[in-house]
Each structure stands twice: as structure tokens, then as C-alpha cells.
């Protein structure tokens, strides 16, 4: 089999074509990396937003409603990410997605972390694979790209860290301890579900180690609460009020007035304490 010799100019042409091909690929890769960084950025901001909202001081101590409100804000902001993926979809069509999967992955996992956090605040449950894929589809139900079980699970694994922060930073609020023990049970469940999948997914092992640490932190916090509250023979909400009152006394009477807190506060009659609690809330409103 002898084909006609390729003249010099053809070799040059051949390589020009290769050059264009490689340039096209590298340029696309860069565009995807940039988009991925933007996605990571927005997702991280959403996570901070969610934490911020659930810690808002409000009159209405209905944590469930507050959590749902946070979730809605989160979903809204995450629509920016979804539109970035919509734009990116054209670069990832056909067999291209897998060529750039490693560049898409980090941003995608961050997005799933943020989305699943909002979902937890909204529903108290773990978002499913199908539900995540549904957020990454065009109006006709065509996915922007195929979601992989790997990215899904790695994103969910990161969620446990945020839940730990959520549980602990809210622990001193009304109902915080109940919430913390719910989160504790939830994270424990996640950890055991993921364990079965670690042989199949690279890096899930490492994330499980982090999840274990997070779980321990929540467990330690829950323990401390049980031990301490056992010293006082009062229902948990009342203890919350007493602590809240003490903090408010401190800030409303200024730093120098040491009398604001001390044992007097703790030994007040429970009903008085509750009454004072309501007043304090009103004060806070006036001061805002």
C-alpha cells in the first residue's frame, strides 16, 4: 500500500490543522475553567448567605419558617449558577462533556453543596440525584450535561461540614439544641450511607474523614449541653431565656455595670424570667 508522497506543503497544512484543533480545545478548556471559578464563587456566597439568614435575630422564633426563607433566598441566588451552566451547555454537548469533566467538576461540587444546604433548610432531607439533575436542565427537560454520581456524592459530602457549622452556631439560640441533635442524627445517617460508596469514588474516603470530624464536633456540643442542663432543673426553653436575658442585660446596661449579671439573674423566679424575656425582646426592637 503506497500512497502518493505527501509534499512539504501538505505536511505544513496537516500541522496547521492540528494547531487549530489544539488551540480550539485549549481555548475551550480555559473558558470552562473560568466559568467554573465563577460558579464556585457564587456557590460559596450562597452558603454564607444561608448561614447568615438562619442566624438572624427576629421576634418570630419560628426557626422552620426562617430556614425556609433562607432556602428561598438561596435558590434565587443559585439561579445565577444555573444560567451559567445553561450558557456552558453548548460547549459540553455530545461527547465533549467528558473531555472537560475535570474542569467542570470543582464548580459543580460547590454548587451541589450550596443547593443541598438550601434543600436541607427547606425540607430537612437530603436532595436526591434526580432533583439535582433537574436543576441543571433546559425548559424542555434536556440536561445541560450528564450529572455523575461521583460529583453528586462529593458535593453532598461537603454539605456535612456546613451542617456542622449550622448546628453549632445556632446552638445558643432558642431551640438550638433540638436542632443540633437533629443535624447530628442526619449527618450520622449521611456518613453511613456514603461509607458503602467509598470504594467506587475516588476522594470520597478523604471527605468521609472530614465528615467524621464534623460529626464529632456536633456530638461534643450535644454532650456538653446535656451535661450542663442537667445541673439546672428547668425545661430547656427556660434555660435559653435565662441565658438570653443575661446577654441582653449585659449589652443594655453597658460594660461597666457588673450588677447586670451575676447570680441574681439566674435565681429569679421562672415566671418573672419569662416576662423579662418578652420585655427584652421589645427593647431590642426599639434599639434597632
Amino acid at each position, binding site marked *: *500500500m*503506497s*500512497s*502518493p*508522497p*505527501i509534499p*512539504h506543503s501538505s*505536511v*505544513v497544512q*496537516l*500541522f*496547521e490543522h*492540528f*494547531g487549530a*484543533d*489544539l*488551540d480550539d480545545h*485549549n481555548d475551550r478548556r480555559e473558558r470552562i475553567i473560568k466559568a467554573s471559578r465563577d460558579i464556585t464563587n457564587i456557590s460559596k456566597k450562597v452558603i454564607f448567605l444561608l448561614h447568615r439568614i438562619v442566624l438572624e435575630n427576629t421576634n418570630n422564633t419560628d426557626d422552620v419558617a426562617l430556614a425556609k426563607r433562607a432556602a428561598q433566598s438561596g435558590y434565587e441566588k443559585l439561579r445565577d449558577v444555573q444560567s451559567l451552566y445553561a450558557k456552558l451547555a453548548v460547549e459540553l454537548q*455530545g*461527547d*465533549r*462533556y*467528558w*473531555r472537560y*469533566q475535570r474542569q467542570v467538576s470543582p464548580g459543580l461540587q460547590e454548587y451541589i453543596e450550596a443547593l443541598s444546604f438550601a434543600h436541607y433548610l427547606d425540607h430537612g432531607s*437530603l436532595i*436526591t*440525584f434526580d432533583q439535582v439533575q433537574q436543576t441543571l436542565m433546559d425548559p424542555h427537560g434536556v440536561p445541560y450535561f450528564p450529572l455523575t*454520581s461521583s460529583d*453528586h*456524592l462529593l458535593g453532598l459530602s461537603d454539605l456535612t461540614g456546613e451542617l456542622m457549622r449550622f448546628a453549632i452556631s445556632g446552638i445558643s439560640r432558642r431551640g438550638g439544641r433540638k436542632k443540633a441533635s437533629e443535624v447530628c442524627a442526619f449527618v450520622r*445517617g*449521611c456518613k453511613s*450511607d456514603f461509607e*458503602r*460508596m467509598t470504594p*467506587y*469514588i475516588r476522594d470520597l474516603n478523604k471527605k468521609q474523614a472530614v465528615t467524621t470530624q464534623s460529626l464529632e464536633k456536633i456530638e461534643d456540643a450535644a454532650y456538653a449541653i446535656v451535661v450542663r442542663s442537667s445541673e439546672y432543673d428547668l425545661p430547656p426553653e427556660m434555660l435559653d431565656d435565662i441565658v438570653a436575658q443575661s446577654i441582653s442585660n449585659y449589652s443594655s446596661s453597658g460594660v461597666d455595670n457588673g450588677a447586670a449579671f451575676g447570680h441574681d439573674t439566674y435565681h429569679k423566679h421562672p415566671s418573672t424570667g419569662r416576662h423579662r424575656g418578652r420585655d427584652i425582646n421589645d427593647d431590642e426592637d426599639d434599639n434597632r
Partner: protein
Amino acid sequence: MDSDEVEKINLMLERDVELREKIKEHVNEFDKRTRTMVGMLNKIHTTPSDANRLEIAVPALLDSARTVLLSCRETTHALSVTVPENQFWRWKDMWSNPIRTAVFAATLIEYLSGRTLLSLPQAANMIGIKEEWSDRVNLPVEDYLHGLISLVNELSRLAVNAVTLGNFDEPIKISIFVKELFVGFSMLNLKNDTLRRRYDSLKYDIKKIEEVVYDVSLRKLTVGSQHRPLAPAS
């Protein structure tokens, strides 16, 4: 996670593992055949120096190597059946090595039989890759280029051994051929990856070939040098 979801995800993961194992089987077969070819082609450095015997021995060698190359079409076909739609880039790294070796072998055979460069589409055809499979099995530019670089590595070695076997014209043919390829490669904008590093090694091959050309020309061993003095190869 509810138990349905857990089951569903585990099923997905297990399917991926099974797929990987099936692909691995085909890749191992591909690998075996390319290694066989490389073993055969290694003989070009030692085939007899006697001109007559050379003319018989090398083509025969190339024919047997070509047969093995064409047999690779079975494995590429098997891969095209196993790899799911649009997942070429997901699995391709599993067979990068054999496919680059196949390109190397194919281009080497082409050079030795016709002294020309086998183009990418021609190489893909030899290995049995069909257009309609391109989303499952394909010959991307990068793998073709890796194959070419291996070809240059091999030719620089052949230049030396050809002279040892008494073939004084081969190095000059090789030099012309390889320099053209090098010009082509220099036109590419490469990232700092393996391809770039291997490209960088090309200049040492060229230097080696040029030294051989220099040696044989100055000593007036080549046909061309017998008629007029040759300047040292630049």
C-alpha cells in the same frame, strides 16, 4: 438518604465498574497486539546488510507487522460496541498507550515502505476506526502526535543502525523526513503537558540524525557526496 436512593446510586456505581472491566479486557487485547508489532518492527535495526537480502527481508517483515496492525481492527470494533454513546473521552485514557503505539507502528511501516507520512485519517483507517463511532472510539490529534514523536525517536535510532548495516543513504532520507515533521510540530501551540515535553526531546533526535548525516557525507560515503563536496548538514 432513603433506601431507594441509596440502591439507585449503588446500582449506577456498580454499572460503571462493570463497564470499566469490560473495556479493560479489550484494552489488554489491543495492548498485546501492539506489543507484538513493536517486537517485530524492532528487527528493522538488525536485518541483514546485504543489499539483496535487505530487499527481501524488510518488506516481508513489514507485511507481517501490517497483518497484526490490521488485526487491531477487531479490538477497536469491540471497543466501539462496549463504550456507551458520547463517552469516548471518559474512557480513552485506558487505551492511550496501545493506540499511540499503533499509530507509531502504522507510520513506521508507511515510512519504510513508501518514505511518506501516513496522515491521521489514514492511520485511523488502518486501525479500523470508523467515522460513525467518533463519539465512542476515535483517534484524536494528541494521540496521533504522540505516535509521530515515537516514530521520530525510532528513526533517529534507525539512522545510526542503518549506517552500521551499510545503508549510507537512509540517514539522509530520514533527516529530510524528520526535519519536515519538526517544522510542523513547531507550528503548534502546546501547553506544558507530556506532549510538550516529548516535543522538546525531538531536537535531540534531530541532532543525532544530523550527526550521522554529517559523518557519512564528509567521508563521502553517500551517493550524493561522491559527485560534489557536501557542506556539513546544518
